[in-house]
């Protein structure tokens, strides 16, 4: 019994300690921002590996998610003779929820895990300690550019995801199922609001970008410097990011879209 309680206490304390370390780490990362802005080349390099290399998966998934939404939405809406609202349905569900959430989940799987593995391996091969020996702050040199790149990339990827998804919905709805093209776009434009829907979606994706990248770089930096440790850290990045995204999405949706 005491053993069980002790275990619980230890785990609890560990969780608290990690949370605390994560926040101190974030503070250090943020403190490096002014310096790194003077060397944009570092950020550009990271935007390439975090954002550009995620382009394909984001664009293809966006297209297919939009097409499936179009198909399924049509089957439901046509029963009520409301298939003209297909555009509204596709656009609103993409811009408000699916775009930010699915893009962030893909981003966590594609870019977050890569970040963790990269930084974790740097730590276990003692590259980070080597930098410290040369009086280079590894957080400012390695972590901060990646963090900034993540925050910049995810909103852009999300916008592309939603835009491609709407096009996918349009291709299926108008091309395959014969929904009137004019009604599709005009109803969409009448119901989707720039501030209420699109801006809130962008805010969501910025929040997700900050959180996912934070988790990814922290897990990498905090990893146990063994090959097993790196693999566990990579797994944790994906799992924790997914949980954080879904939980935060609920909170953000409750804050943004509930005032009727």
């Amino acid at each position, binding site marked *: 019994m005491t053993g069980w309680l002790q275990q619980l206490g230890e785990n609890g304390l560990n969780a608290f300690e990690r949370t605390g370390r994560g926040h101190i780490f974030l503070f250090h990362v943020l403190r490096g921002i002014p310096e790194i802005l003077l060397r944009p080349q570092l950020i550009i390099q990271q935007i390439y590996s975090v*954002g550009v290399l995620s382009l394909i998966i984001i664009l293809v998934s966006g297209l297919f998610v939009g097409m499936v939404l179009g198909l399924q939405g049509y089957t439901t809406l046509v029963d009520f003779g409301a298939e003209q609202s297909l555009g509204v349905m596709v656009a609103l569900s993409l811009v408000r929820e699916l775009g930010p959430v699915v893009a962030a989940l893909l981003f966590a799987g594609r870019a977050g895990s890569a970040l963790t593995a990269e930084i974790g391996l740097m730590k276990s091969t003692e590259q980070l300690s080597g930098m410290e020996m040369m009086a280079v702050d590894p957080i400012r040199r390695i972590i901060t550019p990646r963090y900034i790149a993540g925050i910049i990339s995810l909103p852009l990827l999300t916008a592309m995801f939603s835009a491609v998804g709407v096009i996918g919905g349009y291709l299926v709805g108008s091309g395959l199922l014969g929904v009137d093209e004019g009604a599709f776009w005009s109803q969409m434009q009448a119901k989707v609001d720039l501030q209420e829907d699109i801006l809130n979606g962008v805010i969501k994706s910025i929040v997700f970008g900050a959180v996912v990248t934070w988790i990814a770089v922290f897990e990498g930096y905090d990893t146990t410097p063994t090959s097993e440790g790196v693999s566990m850290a990579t797994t944790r990045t994906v799992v924790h990011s997914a949980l954080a995204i879904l939980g935060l999405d609920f909170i953000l949706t409750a804050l943004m879209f509930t005032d009727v």
Partner: protein
Amino acid sequence: MMQSKTVQIWVGIFIALGFAALFMLAMKVSNLSSFTDDDGYEITASFENIGGLKVRSPIKMAGVIVGRVAKINFDNINYEAVVTMSINTRYNKMPADTSASIFTSGLLGEQYIGLEAGGDENYLKQDDELQLTQSAMILENLIGQFVFDKASEEKQ
């Protein structure tokens, strides 16, 4: 590591694509391209019952959207709903005795205000109040009335 020039070009393409997507969402998907409500004059009208009318519901004249509902308040003295409507300045030649009714698009669709022009030679201007109004048709009331009529018919 790739040549830094290629990397820069790709990042440039990436950022341009991202902003193009945002631009497309703003222009093509949302209602930015239709008019904004900033450039409008406001008129008010009192209704006995507004049904499901909401802020930003459309205001139509001859079926064309000429403005949007800006505010809905409750008049605590006459127990009526006071609806403030923002009408686009392009439509500044509405007769002062224009009447407003609340309609439903389709049987179960959203509600909107329909304006009908009168014959007055003066035009509506900022803060004018419409005198002739007709409340929303509440489906439940109609059904209730129908059932009630049926019942009284059967008694006779």
